Structure formats: C-alpha cells, structure tokens
C-alpha cells in the first residue's frame, strides 16, 4: 500500500515540476496538458523501472520537449519567479544527487533530523538576542533557552501555514546562519571575548619566547646592521616583508638578567621599537662601593664578508682618492 502512495507522490512531484515550467501558458491550455501529463506519468511509473526522472529525464527537459513539439514558444520567464527557478534547480540537483551511490539513503535520512533542528533553533535565537544586546552569558539564560526550545518544538510538530510560515522560514534561516557562525567561533576559540564580558578572564597566553629567535630557539635581543664596507649603521628602522616593524620584543629576564633597554622615543613619546641597534646597558654590581653600575652593551665583534675589518679606512662614502692609490696588501682583504 505504501508503494502506491510513493508512486502517486512521485507522479505529483514530477507533474508539479513540469507544470512550473509551463507557468506562462494560459490556464485552459495548461489544464489540457495536465490532463494528459498525470495520466502519462502514472502509466510510465506503473510500467517502467526506475524513477520517472530516470525514464523520462528531468522535468525541465520533459517540459522543454513538450513545448517544442507542441509548437509552443520556449519558456517566457515573466511568470517564473526566482523562487520557482531556485526550487526547480534545487530539485534537479536533488535528482542528480540521488543518482550517486548511497546518496539516496543519506537524503532520506535528513528529514528525520528535523526534530533535532526544532530543538536547537529556539535556544539559538535566544542566544542571538543576547549577543546582539551585549548581555552576558550565564546560568540564568537556561530558563528562556529551555522555553524557546519547547516552543520551537511545539511549532515544528504542529506546522504552520500562510504568513506565519514565511516568518518561520526567515527565523530558520537566521537561526541557521547564527548557529553556523557560533559553531565556527567555538571551533576557532573566538568565544573568549564573549566569556570575558561575563567576567571570566580569558585564558592567559604564556609568552615563552621573545618575538625574534634563532632557529634553535635562542632569543635575539638586538640587531646590529652593517653596510658592505663593514661600517656599523646607527638608527636603522627594520621592517618585514609585510611592512610590519620588526621587534625583538620584551627580553625575558631569565635570558639576560642584567640587560636593560632604553628605547628611542618619537616626539609624542611612543617608543621606536624597531629602530636598531637598541640602546642597551648591562648592569653590574660594583662590589667595591656596593653601587649598581650601568655600562653600554658593546657592539658584537663581527666580520663582514668582503669588508676591511670594519676599519675606518673604508668608511669614506665618496670616491676617495685612496682608490687610485696602490692596492692595499693582500692580507687586508679580498677586494
């Protein structure tokens, strides 16, 4: 018996889809076509094997063929609302999806999930109001959320018609999108700010390393820049490939306890944290008189490839006369 019902449903759905494609025809003409159509579909369904779509092609194709052979013009869109088109293409996609192995079982299972959605959408809408109003999250929310769940399930079980139905559709869409957003936020851990508003402190992120480290994890505490001649440059601003200032960051006291950094400051007082080398001092305790001595941290001793030991001889920026003088001894460099 249930087979008969299914067949009739399938015929009805297919006929509806075809008629939607004929929506622009005069009523009398359509009525004539329907007469034949339902009769035909019932016959095909009773006789053939497989779904109507498998035997006759998609309803849209059927309608187009019917139009062409009946000498009717191709579908004129005006009566065809975008909703009908959307529905038709969704149905067509559904037919195609169904033909995939296992897809039919999954699709048939979806309606069974509806009660679960009814249960969730109510509380979701309550949560949305809370978030929009900027109210805090708390246990007191459980009461309105439970009430909303109960109301939404009751609504789902009873079903609605008319204008109310449109309202429910809108509410469903809003709840759906909000639910999706909430899920993404939860997955991304982005709910911390909402929790903080309620008074829960966001979990502190332990800073275990300075901003810049060597590959092995040893902190970089300062940057010294040299030009090709081995001259150390002062007051150099360093930026990364994204144009963001490169900072060594707070230097953990555990790394170099005696290190102290004095940042150069802009006119308005903001520290210039990417201006190198940073002015750094090393504090030491003078045992003789018991005072704390602060002395500038010395620049490291480096060898610049191809430069002349960083000696002042090579610093002159202008074409120095010594360029025309006899070359310096081979021991002084490779240039």
């Amino acid at each position, binding site marked *: 018996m249930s087979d008969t019902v299914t067949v009739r449903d399938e015929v009805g759905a297919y006929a509806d889809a075809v008629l939607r494609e004929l929506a622009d025809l005069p009523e009398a003409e359509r009525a*004539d*076509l329907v*007469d*034949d*159509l339902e*009769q*035909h579909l*019932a*016959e*095909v369904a009773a006789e053939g094997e497989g779904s109507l779509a498998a035997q*006759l*092609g998609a309803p849209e*194709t*059927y*309608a187009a*063929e*019917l*139009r*062409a*052979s*009946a*000498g*009717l013009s191709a579908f004129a869109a005006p009566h065809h609302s975008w909703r009908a088109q959307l529905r038709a293409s969704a149905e067509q996609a559904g037919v195609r999806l169904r033909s995939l192995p296992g897809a039919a079982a999954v699709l048939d299972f979806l309606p069974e999930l509806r009660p679960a959605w009814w249960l969730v959408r109510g509380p979701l809408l309550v949560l949305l109001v809370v978030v929009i109003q900027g109210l805090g999250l708390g246990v007191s929310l459980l009461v309105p959320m439970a009430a909303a769940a109960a109301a939404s399930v009751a609504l789902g079980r009873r079903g609605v018609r008319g204008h109310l139905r449109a309202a429910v559709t809108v509410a469903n869409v809003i709840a759906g999108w909000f639910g999706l957003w909430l899920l993404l936020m939860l997955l991304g851990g982005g709910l911390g700010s909402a929790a903080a508003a309620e008074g829960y402190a966001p979990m502190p992120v332990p800073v275990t390393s300075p901003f810049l480290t060597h590959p092995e994890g040893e902190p970089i505490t300062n940057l010294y820049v040299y030009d090709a001649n081995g001259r150390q440059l002062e007051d150099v601003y360093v930026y990364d490939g994204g144009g963001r200032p490169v900072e060594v960051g707070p230097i953990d006291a555990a790394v170099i306890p005696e290190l102290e950094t004095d940042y150069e400051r802009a006119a308005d007082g903001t520290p210039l944290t990417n201006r190198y080398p940073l002015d750094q001092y090393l504090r030491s305790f003078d045992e003789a008189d018991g005072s704390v001595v602060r002395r500038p941290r010395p620049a490291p001793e480096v060898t610049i490839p191809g430069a002349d030991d960083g000696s002042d001889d090579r610093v002159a920026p202008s074409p120095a006369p010594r360029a025309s003088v006899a070359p310096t001894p081979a021991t002084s460099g490779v240039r």
Partner: protein
Amino acid sequence: MDASQLRKGVLDLAVLAVISRADGYGYDIVRRLREAGFDDVGDASVYGTLRRLFAGGALTSYVKPSGEGPHRKYYAVNDTGRDLLEESGKTWRAFVEAVDALLAREDAA
C-alpha cells in the same frame, strides 16, 4: 545520418497514421510508435505533437473510463486530420521517391 532527426521531422505524419488505424490514448500511441520503429521518440514529443494536432483541429478527443485508472483521454482522427494525413502522405512519398532517385543515380555512377 542521424535517423532520429528524420523521425522527428515526420512525427506528425506518423502520429496521424497510428491514430487513423485505431483511436488511442497518449501512452498507447507512444507504445505503438515505438513498436513501429520510432524507438527513440521521446514521450514528451509525442504528447506535444498530440497537443498541437488537437489544437490544430486534426484530432478529436474523448474520455473513456479504464478498468484500473480513473479515465483515459483518447484521440481520434477527424475529417481535417484525414485530409492532412493524405496531404502529408503524398508529400512524404514524393520526397522518398526523389531521394531514392538521387541515390539510384549515385549507385549507377
């Protein structure tokens, strides 16, 4: 050559011929056409053709209650349809003769 295109071109004639032998309802006509060699004719094409011939006044229709279903719409050829069938039949035969003659000359050459 695509035979289905040829069949489509003479579908009017074929449908009229089928119905002129015996009245029939839509799907019955589809079946009889398929048995006669129009095996790849689309269901919707036949129904559309029936619709057009009916609207053009070549067919009449009447409803006949069937055993299991509610009713079936039968089509019958009227005088206009018979005239059309005769006309179309002549055109078809002339066309076939012309093509045959062309093909015969090709063979002889």
